């Protein structure tokens, strides 16, 4: 069992996390969708984004700020039936 940090810091540390396609990421500073994609080396073209299950149009990527606890989904085109 891992050592728990002190009780004051733990909730704060947990609350700084976001998830991108179910992978946890530490949110060190407030980020826009565009900044997040850039930081994670995602291409900005050919992807679409949803935050907390809601579609975020590309026109809002610069203005939409991500908050701790947000679940971000980034999708790309693929073959399908």
């Amino acid at each position, binding site marked *: 069992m891992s050592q728990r940090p002190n009780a004051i810091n733990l909730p704060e540390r947990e609350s700084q996390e976001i998830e991108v396609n179910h992978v946890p990421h530490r949110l060190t500073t407030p980020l826009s969708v565009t900044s997040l994609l850039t930081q994670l080396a995602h291409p900005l073209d050919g992807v679409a984004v*949803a935050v907390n299950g809601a579609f975020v149009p590309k026109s809002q990527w610069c203005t939409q700020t991500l908050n701790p606890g947000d679940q971000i989904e980034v*999708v790309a085109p693929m073959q399908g039936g």
Partner: protein
Amino acid sequence: MTDSWSLGDTHLQSRLMIGSALYPSPQVMQTAIEASGADIVTVSLRRQTAGQNMDTNHWQWLNQMPVHWLPNTAGCYGVREAVTTAHMAREMFDTHWLKLEVIGDEQTLQPDPFGLVEAADLLIKDGFEVFPYMTDDLVLAQRLVDVGCRILMPWASPIGSGQGIRQPQNLQLLRERFPEVQLIVDAGLGRPSDAATAMELGCDGVLLNSAIALSPDPTRMAQAFGHAVAAGRMG
């Protein structure tokens, strides 16, 4: 013989629609799609993994093709998920067409009729042309038409099963009861003769994927399906 027709607001030459999944390589996919003569190709969306180079291979090949995209909501089990995926697909592929899939059973991938109607209603109100992937149930078809579907896509049998048309009389009934709706058989067709039968039953088109993509010779099978659809239409 030309047999042009319109689907929604788009003019088309072929009544065969084809999926882009499961081909052994992008090159085979491209050749098979071209050989099929299809004007409409289904595509999908997948989650990107952070830092991973996007697997753009198939997409780059697809993107060069002069076809209409029909994005799907494959893998969606809930209304909200399907609606969000639909919006992402509309932006990504720049089309209001959507093959709406709301899956109700993981094993057979049988659609959830209740979720399908709810999602279709929301999306049609939001300007989508919804192609609902459905069973061949008459009352479900009525509910979908009631919320504004102009196109219905009943399955022939479970997706990928290749069982052919399990209940031809159900498709016939849909044809009789919804003469004004574009009826496209989607899923379960195994042989070109299944596609010919669907057209003989009065369907407006067929959509298939695995029967071509998983065939030992996808290009030849794509041609065979193209001929079968034309033959069934003429017959």
